[in-house]
């Protein structure tokens, strides 16, 4: 069997993909170890941090300053171990996915047919950096669909299953063992050391990792850009967990709006950066898109939204992976 000509879905089965991508044989990865993921065939790479499984209190206590009602009731949640991006995904890694021609210039050889078969974003009509810079800056303005297709592109490139964090995973990672409003405590006055937000950002994104990390070594969980999660935003979602522990909860989306973004951004006030704060995506983020149907790929009015990758220690089945990556976009008009 000629692996280079095998259909994408066959490559995903079993170990074949790991022989195809020998530099990234993370099947052997020790789940307790951090690692650096190379983007096969390029010089690009990104860092992943091992997060141990455990239980935490999701949501915020009723007396937390700035708390909103969608953050309660606070309830225990059990989380399986996973890796999460040390940093928000930068344009450096995201842009080769956006532009096929650019990807070619970044590659050591040709781009494999499996990679080439991944749907790419329509090229953005506007400057999607919004003049805020690219190198080491978080990629911004992508839709959740775009973010998931980026994960699919990474999968085709590396053979490793990456996805968006669930809302619960994101909050668990952000709290990093604490139960305070921010990972460093409750005092918003200290936020400037840990986060880019309205008070210090100059209304633009900053290089990732230029503030202090949280206790688990994750940078910019608060601020810089808000980050996509997998979940539908349901304001009273936590009510269903009253009185029982939830295990790896996720509100699987069945509607285009709203999806949950977390962490607040360079545009936000301190309260929006709290670990438990929840925000939903909004059709207004595409209000100014002059095309109908509006772009499946870009939010021309959301320079504040980006993403962070998760890799579960126990990857799902091939069929589940396919189902996750291959959902058709919902037309938006």
């Amino acid at each position, binding site marked *: 069997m000629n692996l280079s000509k095998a259909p994408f879905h066959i490559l995903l089965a079993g170990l074949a993909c790991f022989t195809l991508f020998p530099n990234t044989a993370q099947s052997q990865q020790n789940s307790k170890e951090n690692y650096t993921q190379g983007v096969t065939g390029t010089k690009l790479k990104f860092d992943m941090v091992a997060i141990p499984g455990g239980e935490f209190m999701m949501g915020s206590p009723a007396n937390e300053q700035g708390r909103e009602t969608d953050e309660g009731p606070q309830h225990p949640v059990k989380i399986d171990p996973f890796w999460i991006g040390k940093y928000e995904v930068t344009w450096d890694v995201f842009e080769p996915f956006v532009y096929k021609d650019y990807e070619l210039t970044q590659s050591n050889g040709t781009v494999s047919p499996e990679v080439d078969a991944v749907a790419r974003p*329509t090229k953005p009509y506007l400057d999607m950096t919004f003049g805020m810079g690219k190198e080491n800056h978080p990629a911004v303005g992508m839709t959740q669909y775009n973010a998931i297709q980026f994960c699919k592109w990474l999968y085709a490139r590396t053979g490793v299953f990456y996805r968006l964090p669930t809302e619960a995973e994101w909050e668990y990672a952000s709290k990093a063992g604490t139960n305070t409003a921010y990972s460093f405590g409750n005092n918003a006055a200290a936020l400037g050391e840990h986060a880019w937000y309205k008070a210090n950002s100059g209304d633009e994104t900053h290089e990732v990792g230029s503030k202090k990390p949280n206790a688990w070594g994750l940078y910019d969980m608060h601020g810089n850009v808000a980050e996509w999660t997998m979940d539908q935003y349901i304001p009273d979602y936590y009510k269903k967990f009253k009185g029982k522990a939830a295990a790896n909860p996720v509100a699987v989306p069945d509607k285009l709006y709203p999806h949950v973004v977390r962490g607040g951004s360079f545009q936000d006030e301190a309260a929006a950066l709290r670990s438990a704060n929840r925000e939903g995506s909004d059709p207004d983020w595409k209000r100014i898109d002059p*095309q109908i149907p509006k772009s499946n790929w870009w939010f021309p009015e959301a*320079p504040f939204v980006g993403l962070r990758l998760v890799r579960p220690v126990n990857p799902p089945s091939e069929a589940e992976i396919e189902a996750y990556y291959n959902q058709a976009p919902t037309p938006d008009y």
Partner: protein
Amino acid sequence: MKEFDLNKRREFLKASALLAGGAMLSSIPLAGAYAAGKGTIKIALVGCGGRGTGAAFQALQTKHDVKLVAMADAFRDRLDDSYKPLFEKFGKSKVDVPEGKKFVGFDAYKKAIAEADVVLLATPPGFRPIHFEEAVKQNKHVFMEKPVATDSPGIRSVLATAEEAKKKKLNVVVGLQRRYQKNYREAMKRIEDGALGDITSGQVYWNSGGVWVRPRKPEQTEMEYQMRNWYYFNWLCGDHITEQHIHNIDVANWIKNDYPVSAQGTGSRFLRTGKEYGEIYDNHTVEFIYKDGTVLQSQCRHFEGTDNRVDESFQGTKGRVYLSADNIARLTDYKGNVIYDHAGKGDPNPYQTEHDELFAAIAAGQFKFSDAERGAKSTMTSLLGRYATYSGHEVKWDDALNSNISLMPETFAWDAKPKVLPDANGLYPIAIPGKTKVI
């Protein structure tokens, strides 16, 4: 003397602002196709791509009694893709386009225009002069997307039709939406009042990663292939200096309240060289020279992986301004003092404002908008830039405008030949500075 000149300039600006803004025109009763109080304003959409469909959405979202009654496109599939979201969103009461009012092909526009009071022209820009002429001939109000032509004969046609539209008191709005965007309007108001003194230099940019390609299909004729990939063929698109960068070039003309007398520049096809990219360049850098000697620099490129930039900066004798479509307008003096900083959060969507203002005028029976002349002249400015980069020569405005080189095919049919054809390897002839004759 200096002061005198400045005052004179401001008087001129005010007079032209009145003409553009409509205070002088608004008292003129409307004599076009639609009269105030006549009831439903019927619209036809000519060009059913994403932008045309978007324009129809905006027209139907105005607060007036507006109904879409006819649609036209060269391609049936494009028309169907446009009709579906329109009908789903607005329903039969606002989207009443039965099968017999869906017109397909090169001549479809004539039939669709005949059904309406107002036409939305949103085909690739090469067709605009023909469609605009027909709309005005049939006494219709017009919303037309920019750019409005792709060659000099097309510009002259639009200028002539613009005169005709004025005589007939037909409202014409051109989709240079920065003209309808609050941050730009607020900045220009202050600049016209002298906040920056005289504008002496500036820089305008559209640096991005480029746009889509639609792969060739074996059953396509050359005409169909080029129509599907209109962005990469000059008779349809005008090159990206025209199709996209016109926005920023128009802002330069707006702030100078004038058009350049000449241009010189350089451009090439450097990174995007494949046959799927037709004949257009991927970068242009142009100096536009105005009659008072001001040099405005323009830069546009489609380079993937490089810095992006889409904005405008200008310097005056008293200060500078930075403008961008992200609702930014910042005027400062040379000591760093802020003269005006626009608070853009919650500004209206300029694409919607274009239609809100156009349909308000039509519904009230007013003649307020005659954008076609400046739309044509700003399009001409972008063509002047293309002529300069393609030829490698300094090009004078008057020579360029009077050029008789037409890029349009002799006949419009699926089996007709466009003027630019691929060689045996599928590659199209590319303009070579120093050799290519552009005017």
